[in-house]
């Protein structure tokens, strides 16, 4: 897509807003919805990946060190990962500017 979503005019839209490219939802930054963000104490992490399984957004991936971490571009801050993480690695903290 040549233009970013915010630059699209009414003339740029496909018929009936049909989306012709796969994976267009990737461009949508749902992270702006967040009021809390997950923080990690990776010393306790056993890399079980339960947080990633429970994440309703599917935004948790393994970082280069193999720890599971939310992609804040998409993470809506629901806190399900923190609740399900039984070694208590994840703690939700308020988003402050």
């Amino acid at each position, binding site marked *: 897509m040549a233009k970013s*979503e*915010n630059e*699209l*005019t*009414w*003339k*740029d*839209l*496909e*018929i*009936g*807003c*049909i*989306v*012709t490219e*796969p994976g*267009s939802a990737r461009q*949508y930054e749902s992270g702006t919805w967040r009021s809390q963000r997950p923080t990690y104490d990776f010393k306790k992490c056993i890399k079980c990946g339960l947080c990633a399984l429970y994440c309703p957004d599917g935004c948790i991936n393994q970082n280069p060190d193999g720890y599971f971490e939310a992609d804040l571009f998409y993470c809506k801050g629901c806190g399900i990962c923190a609740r399900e993480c039984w070694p208590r690695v994840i703690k939700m903290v308020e988003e402050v500017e």
Partner: protein
Amino acid sequence: MTTRIGVEVSIALADAVKLANPDVIAAYPITPQTHIVEHLAELVANGELDAEYVPVESEHSAMSACLGSAAAGARTFTATSSQGLALMIEVLYVASGMRLPIVMALANRALSSPLSIWPDHSDMMSIRDTGWIQIVVENGQQAVDNTIIAFRIGEDPRVLLPVIVHLDGFNLTHVIEPILLPEQADVDKFLPKNRFPLPLNPDRPVAMGGFAPPFIYTETKFAQEVNLKNSKKVILQAWEEFHKAFGRKYLPVEKYHSDGAKVLIMTMGSSGETASVAIDEMRKEGMDVGQIRLRLWRPFPFEELREAVKDADILIVMDRAISFGGPGGPVASEVKAALYNQAKRPKVVSYVISLGGRDTTVSGFKDIVRKGMDIAARGSKNEYEIYGVKE
């Protein structure tokens, strides 16, 4: 050579759908639309029409099945009426927003409560703003012709919108009329194949019906509005070419002795022919009256309306529905809005008539014209008049 045959309008309309060679028909029966879909089901069952007939469990499902069918690029037809339409409304908006060229016959009928199976335009008015192209016919021949034309308009790559053909329940659906059913070869020439540009296709995947956040929703709706407005020139072209091929002419605003007439009566739907008889009689009596008939309800033909009433002093507008607590007749309300900013405009008198199947006769229309002229001269404290209500 086509011959005129006496046939029930519902059956003729179904035969017109067959001539358009649809791929999918998804419908749920409801009075007074039933004979249309019943006959189509019969044609499919008998092997006379090679189409999928989807006998759905509700009108909401009917329109939803039509969405899928049209999205796959199939020529799609449905029909409903009144309560069935009410159940369908949610999906009607989806069809126009997704630009899917579905054709629907709507047997106009009153909405409950109290329960009425008889005709008026309350169902039509409930879907006014759904973004469908809406053609209103006044006899069986027009229903047949415009059903075929509707496929051509809706599927035109410059349009790609769903189209409704409104025909009054019973007054049209259940009467036997002499009808010219076009020849298959002529219809095939008039109606090109449906080629939806981005159909659902596993080899070329697309996503339809996505969501639009606030930063783009306004743009989607404006694009839809521009598209519906621009469809008028394609509608005019389709009617013109139909006229050339079949000899019958349709216009957004049709005139009957209206040019130069000082008093005009405006009708939409089957009551128009009764009103024409009244016009004939009044003109014979020396009255300077004419008639205009609204054939195209959406997109609304602003220019044609303004042109048609430019010489008139009085315009009496008939409505078969009430906008409760509002301006009375929805058609009159739009006519007033269309004329308000014109330097020269007729006085508009709004009459609500023929609700829930009550007939307005020739003498009734003559009475309305006389009373309407009186109201135009003296003024009225009412936003609209309701004809024939028992006091």
